[in-house]
């Protein structure tokens, strides 16, 4: 299938009539995924959004339910969002990240209705990366600039057109609904050429990483890698796979609502127990948790690394603490487990 | 205590806190004296009422001060230590125990009377309260004006209005007898009646008013709510003049003394008036000599002149007349210094009226057998500060001579000190101590709050729907009981609250009524009596902050009252019982400095039975007084000093250390440890700093280069030793090293001292020519008489301008002094045989002591008192006091008084068996504290410091006043004040 670039805006308008449509919107030098009201708002010129689109399915702050209490009981109204959504222009790394998050929000025992409902009602229209950034290392993290895993449709930029590949049934249905024209062989060939040309220059060695992490919890490498870390949350909040959250009440007297907000394992109070005991007291422990969780615990549990190589944490870190270097340091360190 | 102005209040509090029972006798229906009438006070521009109010409350509530208002002493018999006083109490017609001060009666009273408190500028009713914050907070009936008292069948509206049943028109005068040990006479002063001086037009010209009237105009509680207008036509004045020395420095009407306070209050009024007006107000002060001789006064004068643009016109005012143009403006005709005559028109002229003794004082003095001076003031006997000719009777305040508030307070404390010294054997025998039932342990109990909503007569009830608020309170979390009260503060309500606490097993109490500032302690008392911790109480102010300000919107006011109650209930639920702490108290004293002040302090302490360590850094006692030969009134100072030294030596309670300094000092009130440079270490409970001062060594006027040029102290020695007998021309130059850029303060004593020496010279050699070159002659109080005498005896006074200082040159065996005379405008050349330089009084090096005892110095290097006005010998740091020249320049008499004052203040501490601190102090959450030290810097009580090793702030609970400065400065949230925590405050806000 194929869409001409000039038709994108109109196509989005068509979608907006039926769906909540999210697409990259330019904000100064960067772009962000936002719900658009008109197709013309979308802008695909940036390599990727500043903050990942995960917030569309797992908002930074969301109301879980509201309540009011009476002497007889409590009235609880859940606030599950079941609106039909389209995320348009999602990059392969971010699409992959949602597959990873699925594991979290539907574990062996529980299902999170908020995320899962949105997830079920969301169509992902992906967009391949013709020209990956220098900070991208997706190919090292089991995905790639045109990896369509997790998407419903994949758009390949061939210059004047997007060649559209249907990935899932949901994608095919949407394509049918939109009545997309079939792509010619030349277009498909152009797309294949683009795909081939796309080069992720940065390669991060992950070989042996898991094995290393399996045995280096007490290694002194952790004393060093965290040293420059300021302990802010710009890496976790810009990470498409980070999913830690907090639950709070916002209430006047007994009427209020329960809200969940993103939280970060990099914050010192994250694990502070009511008794005053904190199992992760310092920056070293928190940095280790972040790395371990992404590259070991997640692998243990779901057989996948909780990193998609999008490179946002590298760009957003105020002190240029580069996860690629951290991983290299860990791999290069002498194993010396207790 | 005869008189209840600030002197009576201070002396009563000092005595009562030191273990004596005080009867405070006041003619008026409320205590307070003159201070409540004043708007702001110099030199700090503090609101007079605001600073007085806490003392009023303390005094009024004190268990060991019995206030007798509407009362007068009619007879005194017996001996010091055992007097019998007869007191006549006039009928008040209102029972102060029942009256809640709500004011409903006055609203109904039909009789309007000129309000003397407002200087007749406003009206009050026949049933009235002297002023809003009066103690007792009870109304009184003006017998002469009340319709019902004149005709029992007439009127009676107040009776209907009073829901407390406090009014009784049939009340009779009563006479009681008191057994007392001593009398302190503090009747204060009366304002000079400016109508006596017809040339000022007071009483004839509507826009000539007195300074006291002007105070009331400026006052926010005054007749015009602080809006500066002319009382005659309510016009905003554009130009205001002050005329100084009205009824002062005037021998023709037998007011030959200086009233001491008028220069400063006039400057203050001019400055404050300018602040009050949104437009540029022109202010001018017509004066003869600007007498800003007190601590920080000269700087105040300089600021008024240079920053505020107050005009100062050195002149003599001849008369004030009408401009006759219908504007009501006044024309001031005056002579300039050079003799020329000028005129200027002003919208308003303020007469700076002087102070004079109360008219009825002669009679009282007669009853007491007290001698008065020729103006009918009771001048204290020499070098006693507060003594009278009758043992056991002391005098303080303006009645002992015109003086300002700090000096009055100092003298009051001194009188208390002398009185206590005399009665020391009886200390603690008559004082009462309240006993409370054992405190109920409410820890961990579920919150059970009782809420009491007050109608305050009609004050709240007529605006706020109290029953609605009561019902609303019942719905709030933790509230198990809610009720309304006509007067929550009445005696019977206290009983009902106690009953409710018991019946409903309340463990928190909320009262919604008026201001916690006045009423919280009373309600807390009720809780204590019911066996609850006082800190389980919370108050909502639904009167001042609700019904009064929202009178026209009753519905909204009711809603707001509900909110205020909800906030209070929310905070109450988070209140915890707080326990005060009790620390040991060492009852010994340390006096630093062995001059006249230090010795007087040590002796007075010893007389009160306390052990004293007296530390003097030089080899012998006496200090700078060793160089003084004559007192200001001619006293034999060497003999006096020798006498003091002998008494010190003979007193077994005084341990003297000479030739040593303080090497180290640690600790806090009741628990100081001081180490001397000799290695001796001892503990003490209080410290009195009396390190004295020095005479400035001049660099100017050939001093040190020519042996004819001497300082006043050197002159004094020469004079006494007869070395000046043959001198023909003698010149005194004033303000040497004072009132300049380096030392922008007045040294206070030099004018008087120079004149004293000039008179001495004239006495021995009437032919000698004595010249005094001055900028302003500052012979305050009765020293003005010496100035008058000196002029009469031919001492020549030549004023010089600060930019044209006299020139002193060597001229053979003489010294040539050239000065430009202001009157003649030509240089005057004097070939002097001796030149006396009135060198400044300068402080000694005090930095170390300042650090050791955590007490501050002012910019001039003198110690800085806790409060300029009302705590003149105290420091912000508890248990440390000061006196003498260490505080600032003053003469011997004043130093003696201040030494006694410091002792009286110290004894209020020493009399305590332990240091008991109420629980409301700061606390540190060590986990949140970073030890940044902001709290340490901002703590006015020096009660918090960062521990150097632990790097966290540590509170000294004995010193903490719970003011909250630290907690509001602590950005980490590590500091909280118990009973007012961040959490409690946020809970209150969140409750809205």
């Amino acid at each position, binding site marked *: 299938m194929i869409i001409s670039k000039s038709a994108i805006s109109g196509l989005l308008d068509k979608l907006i009539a039926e769906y909540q449509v999210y697409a990259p919107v330019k904000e100064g030098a960067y772009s962000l995924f936002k719900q658009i009201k008109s197709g013309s708002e979308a802008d695909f010129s940036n390599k990727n959004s500043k903050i990942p689109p995960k917030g569309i399915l797992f908002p930074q702050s969301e109301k879980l*339910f509201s*309540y009011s*209490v*009476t*002497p007889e*009981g*409590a009235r*609880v109204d*859940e606030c*599950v969002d079941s609106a039909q959504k389209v995320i348009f222009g999602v990059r392969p790394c971010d699409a992959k990240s949602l597959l990873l998050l699925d594991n*979290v*929000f539907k*574990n*062996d*025992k*529980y*299902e*999170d*209705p908020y995320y*899962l*409902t949105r997830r079920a009602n969301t169509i992902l229209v992906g967009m391949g990366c013709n020209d990956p950034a220098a900070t991208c290392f997706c190919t090292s993290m089991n995905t790639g600039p045109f990896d369509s895993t997790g998407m419903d449709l994949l758009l390949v930029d061939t210059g004047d057109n997007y060649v559209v590949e249907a990935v899932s049934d949901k994608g095919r249905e949407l394509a049918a609904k939109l009545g997309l024209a079939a792509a010619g062989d030349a277009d498909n060939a152009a797309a294949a050429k683009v795909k081939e040309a796309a080069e992720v220059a940065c390669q991060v060695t992950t070989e042996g990483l898991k094995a290393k992490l399996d045995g280096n*919890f007490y290694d002194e490498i952790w004393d060093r890698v965290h040293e420059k870390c300021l302990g802010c949350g710009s890496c976790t909040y810009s990470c498409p796979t980070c*999913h*830690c*959250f*907090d*639950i*709070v*009440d916002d*209430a006047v*007297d*007994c009427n*209020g609502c*329960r809200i*969940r907000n993103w*939280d970060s*394992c990099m914050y010192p109070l*994250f*694990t*502070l*127990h*009511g*008794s005053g*005991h904190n*199992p*992760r007291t310092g920056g070293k*422990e928190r940095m280790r*948790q972040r790395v*371990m*969780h992404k590259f*070991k*615990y997640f692998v*243990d549990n779901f057989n996948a690394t909780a990193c998609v190589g999008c490179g946002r944490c590298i760009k957003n870190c105020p002190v240029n603490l580069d996860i690629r270097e951290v991983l290299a340091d860990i791999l290069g360190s002498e194993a010396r487990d207790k | 205590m005869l008189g209840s102005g600030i002197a009576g209040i201070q002396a009563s509090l000092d005595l009562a806190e030191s273990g004596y029972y005080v009867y405070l006798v006041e003619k008026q229906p409320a205590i307070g004296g003159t201070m409540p009438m004043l708007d702001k006070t110099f030199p700090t521009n503090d609101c007079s009422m605001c600073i007085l109010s806490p003392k009023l409350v303390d005094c009024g509530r004190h268990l060991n001060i019995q206030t007798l208002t509407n009362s007068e002493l009619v007879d005194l018999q017996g001996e010091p230590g055992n007097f019998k006083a007869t007191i006549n109490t006039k009928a008040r017609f209102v029972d102060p125990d029942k009256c809640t001060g709500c004011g409903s009666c006055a609203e109904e009273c039909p009789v309007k009377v000129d309000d003397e408190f407002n200087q007749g500028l406003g009206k009050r009713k026949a049933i009235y309260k002297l002023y809003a914050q009066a103690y007792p907070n009870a109304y009184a009936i003006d017998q002469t004006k009340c319709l019902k008292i004149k005709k029992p069948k007439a009127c009676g509206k107040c009776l209907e209005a009073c829901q407390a049943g406090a009014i009784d028109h049939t009340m009779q005068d009563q006479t009681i007898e008191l057994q007392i040990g001593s009398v302190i006479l503090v009747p204060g002063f009366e304002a000079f009646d400016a109508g006596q001086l017809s040339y000022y037009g007071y009483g004839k010209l509507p826009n000539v008013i007195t300074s006291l009237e002007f105070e009331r105009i400026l006052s926010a509680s005054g007749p015009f709510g602080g809006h500066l207008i002319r009382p005659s036509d309510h016009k905003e004045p554009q130009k205001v003049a002050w005329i100084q020395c009205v009824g002062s420095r005037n021998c023709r009407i037998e007011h030959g003394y200086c009233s001491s306070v008028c220069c400063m209050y006039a400057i203050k009024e001019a400055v404050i008036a300018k602040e009050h007006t949104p437009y540029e107000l022109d202010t001018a002060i017509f004066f003869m000599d600007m007498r800003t001789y007190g601590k920080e006064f000269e700087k105040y004068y300089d600021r008024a002149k240079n920053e505020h643009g107050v005009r100062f016109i050195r002149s003599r005012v001849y008369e004030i007349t009408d401009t006759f143009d219908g504007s009501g403006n006044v024309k001031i005709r005056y002579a300039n210094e050079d003799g020329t005559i000028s005129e200027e028109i002003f919208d308003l002229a303020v007469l700076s009226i002087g102070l004079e003794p109360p008219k009825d004082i002669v009679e009282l003095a007669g009853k007491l057998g007290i001698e008065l001076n020729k103006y009918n003031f009771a001048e204290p006997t020499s070098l006693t500060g507060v003594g009278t000719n009758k043992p056991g009777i002391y005098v303080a305040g303006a009645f002992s001579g015109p003086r300002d508030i700090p000096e009055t307070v100092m003298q009051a404390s001194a009188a208390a000190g002398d009185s206590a010294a005399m009665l020391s054997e009886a200390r603690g025998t008559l004082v009462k101590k309240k006993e409370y039932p054992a405190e109920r342990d409410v*820890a*961990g*109990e*579920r*919150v059970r709050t009782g809420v009491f909503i007050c109608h305050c007569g009609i004050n709240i009830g007529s605006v706020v729907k109290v029953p609605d608020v009561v019902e609303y309170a019942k719905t709030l979390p*933790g509230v198990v009981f809610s009720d309304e009260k006509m007067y929550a503060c009445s005696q019977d309500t206290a009983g009902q609250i106690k009953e409710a606490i018991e019946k409903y097993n309340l463990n928190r109490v909320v009262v919604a009524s008026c201001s916690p500032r006045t009423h919280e302690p009373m309600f807390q008392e009720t809780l204590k009596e019911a066996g609850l911790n006082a800190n389980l109480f919370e108050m909502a102010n639904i009167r001042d902050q609700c019904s009064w300000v929202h009178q026209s919107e009753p519905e909204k006011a009711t809603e707001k009252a509900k909110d205020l109650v909800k906030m209070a209930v929310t905070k109450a*639920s988070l209140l915890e019982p707080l326990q005060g702490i009790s620390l040991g108290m060492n009852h010994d004293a340390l006096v630093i400095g062995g001059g006249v002040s230090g010795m007087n302090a040590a002796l007075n302490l010893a007389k009160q039975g306390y052990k004293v360590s007296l530390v003097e850094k030089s080899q012998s006692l006496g200090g700078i007084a060793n160089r003084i030969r004559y007192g200001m009134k001619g006293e034999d100072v060497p003999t006096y000093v020798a006498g003091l030294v002998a008494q010190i030596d003979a007193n077994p309670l005084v341990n003297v250390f000479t030739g040593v300094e303080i090497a180290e000092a640690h600790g806090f009130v009741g628990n100081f440890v001081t180490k001397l440079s000799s290695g001796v270490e001892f503990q003490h409970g209080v410290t009195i700093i009396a390190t004295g001062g020095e005479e400035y060594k001049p660099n100017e006027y050939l001093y040190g280069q020519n042996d004819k040029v001497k300082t006043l102290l050197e002159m004094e020695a020469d004079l006494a030793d007869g070395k000046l007998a043959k001198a023909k021309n003698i010149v005194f130059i004033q303000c040497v090293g004072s009132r300049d850029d380096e030392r922008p303060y007045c040294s206070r004593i030099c004018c008087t001292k120079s004149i004293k020496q000039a008179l001495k010279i004239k006495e021995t050699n009437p032919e000698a020519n004595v010249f005094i070159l001055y900028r302003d002659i500052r012979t305050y109080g009765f020293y003005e008489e010496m100035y008058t005498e000196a002029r009469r005896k031919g001492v020549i006074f030549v004023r010089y301008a600060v930019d044209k200082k006299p020139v002193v040159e060597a001229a053979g065996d003489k010294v040539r002094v050239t000065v430009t005379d202001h009157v003649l405008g030509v240089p005057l050349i004097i070939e002097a045989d001796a030149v006396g330089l009135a060198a400044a009084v300068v402080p000694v090096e005090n930095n170390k002591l300042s650090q050791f005892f955590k007490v501050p110095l002012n910019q001039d290097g003198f110690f800085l008192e806790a409060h300029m006005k009302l705590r003149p010998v105290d420091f912000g740091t508890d248990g440390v006091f000061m006196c003498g020249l260490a505080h600032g320049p003053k003469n011997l008499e004043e130093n003696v008084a201040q030494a006694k004052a410091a002792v009286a203040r110290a004894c209020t501490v020493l009399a305590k068996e332990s240091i008991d601190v109420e629980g409301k102090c700061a606390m540190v959450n060590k986990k949140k504290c970073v030890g940044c030290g902001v709290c340490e810097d901002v703590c006015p009580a020096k009660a918090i410091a960062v521990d150097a090793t632990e790097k966290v702030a540590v509170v000294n609970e004995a010193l903490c006043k719970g003011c909250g400065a630290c907690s509001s400065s602590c950005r980490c949230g590590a500091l909280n004040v118990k009973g007012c925590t961040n959490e409690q405050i946020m809970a209150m806000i969140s409750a809205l």
Partner: protein
Amino acid sequence: MQRNPYLPLPMKLVKNFTETEDKLIHTFTFEYLSEEDEKSFPYMPGQFAEICVFGKGEAPFGIASSPTEPGHLKFSVAKVGVVSTALHMMEEGTIVGMRGPLGNYYPLEQMKGKNVVIIGGGFAFTTLRSLATYMLKPEHRGDYGNLTVIYGARNPGLLLYKEELAEWDKRSDIDLVCTIDRPVEGWSGRVGFIPNVTKEVSPSSDNAVAIICGPPVMIKFTMPVLEECGFKPEQVIMSLENRMKCGIGMCGRCNVGSKYVCKDGPVFTRAELNQLPNEY
């Protein structure tokens, strides 16, 4: 999709009882509002629930009652945080939210036929009470061998469930050893710290499991004693107390190694814990 695990079940506080003499621990009894509600809350000893104080938030607490005691839930809670403080102040009759049961439970199946040693210290005795009560129920008692309970507190006033302890003491099918840290007048039981008392009791590890809950320091010193008695890591069962929010293994707070204490725990054997980093 299954039931929304974030939604609380309304329950009524019927008893707010001050459990210890320092008044810092209260025991709360909550009643279900309906039979269906009760059916929707099937739990086992060792599980916990998130108690939600409306307006303040929720916090996890181990369930102290036993499924053998129908109709209500019981918790003993120390006053430490916002929610527990609100609970302590709560009027009887107030509605709270209950989310659970959460977490795993003591391995009652595997314990069948074995001797059971329960060791508890201070206010960590709550789920142990649930466990003991469960096993003491006549229909369950036969499933297990000897039951030894070693329980200690600083002083007698700080022991939880004093009346029940007295009853257990009278029974012959449970061997109860109560101890306090220092001698106090009127205390006739044992005196000494849990590790020492455990050493004195010296429970046999043959065909036994030990379940131990208490303050970290108690656990630290009791472990070697159990080892001396021959207990292998597989025979020692513990319950962790990490900070939790969601209780369903998502929010990441109680993540230790690849486990989520809320979902995979809080009950772990010593052997399982040995595999985890010591971040608990």
